[in-house]
């Protein structure tokens, strides 16, 4: 098996992405459709939340992705800053719009869920506020890429922005633990004790958890498929730009 750094070669990355893309897309579609249909049509109402519990199948996976996409961008940005691999920073650029959509879905479904349960669409709770700031960081990251002509300078500056924004990605996840206040509950799905049953805190019942797990897997696979597709697109755009520049010179 070759080194992971082989994929820093744009040709090698494009070839591998093209090979894997159909399989990852099919698996993503199967997981997402099965998880959502199972959750929406075949799970009961919650005794306290009624049918609004069905929003969990969209809200939790999108919120998890919103935070973790930023961490993926952080890792690939650090690889760019340390090793100067173009494919790495192009993967971060390709992931950002997916992260925006995930954050938007998490915010929108959270507001729609919060209105009947908390009696308000929005509250300046630490976790919600950190999430809103993360959303603004995503927009700023994309705007910065668009604002700078030199691709290497844009890559450097967006990578630094990504490092700064990681504070808010972290706060989005742990704000409830840090401040211990606000309306939003703590982790009840992706918590070690909730998964193993080792603690006695509130956790999601298995009847909701299994379709939710399938939706989370579907969202992760959808993200992987989109990053393969969008990174390959960025590589194609760069190659075209280089060829056009050569044409003009010639």
């Amino acid at each position, binding site marked *: 098996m070759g080194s992971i750094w082989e994929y820093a070669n744009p040709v090698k990355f494009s070839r591998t992405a093209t090979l894997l893309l159909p399989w990852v897309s099919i698996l993503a579609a199967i997981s997402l459709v099965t998880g959502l249909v199972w959750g929406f049509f075949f799970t009961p109402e919650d005794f306290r939340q009624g049918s609004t519990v*069905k*929003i969990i199948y969209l*809200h939790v996976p999108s919120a998890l992705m919103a935070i973790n996409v930023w961490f993926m961008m952080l890792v690939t940005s650090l690889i760019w800053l340390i090793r100067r691999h173009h494919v790495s920073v192009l993967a971060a650029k390709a992931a950002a719009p997916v992260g925006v*959509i995930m954050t938007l879905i998490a915010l929108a479904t959270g507001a729609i869920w919060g209105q009947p349960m908390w009696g308000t669409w929005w509250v300046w709770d630490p976790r919600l506020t950190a999430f809103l700031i993360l959303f603004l960081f995503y927009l700023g990251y994309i705007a910065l890429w668009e604002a700078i002509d030199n691709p290497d300078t844009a890559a450097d500056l967006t990578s630094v922005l990504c490092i700064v924004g990681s504070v808010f990605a972290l706060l989005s996840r742990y704000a409830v633990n840090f401040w211990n206040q606000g309306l939003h509950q703590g982790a009840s799905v992706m918590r070690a004790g909730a998964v193993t049953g080792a603690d006695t805190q509130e956790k999601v019942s298995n009847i909701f958890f299994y379709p939710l797990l399938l939706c989370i897997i579907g969202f992760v696979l*959808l993200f992987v498929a989109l990053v393969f597709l969008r990174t390959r*697109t960025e590589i*194609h*755009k760069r190659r075209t730009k280089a*060829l056009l520049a050569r*044409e003009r010179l010639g």
Partner: protein
Amino acid sequence: MMPELGKYAAEVMSAYAASLFLLIAMVLLSVRSARKARAELAAAEARKNG
């Protein structure tokens, strides 16, 4: 077939409609952009190769 959503039907349906719209739009825009970039690269390479 449609589950009984009770008094929260509007909230549940709007959450699903908004999310699915955003997800489908993101996939379609990504595919369209990929096709356009590939076609432009193919045209540039064809010009280069004469």
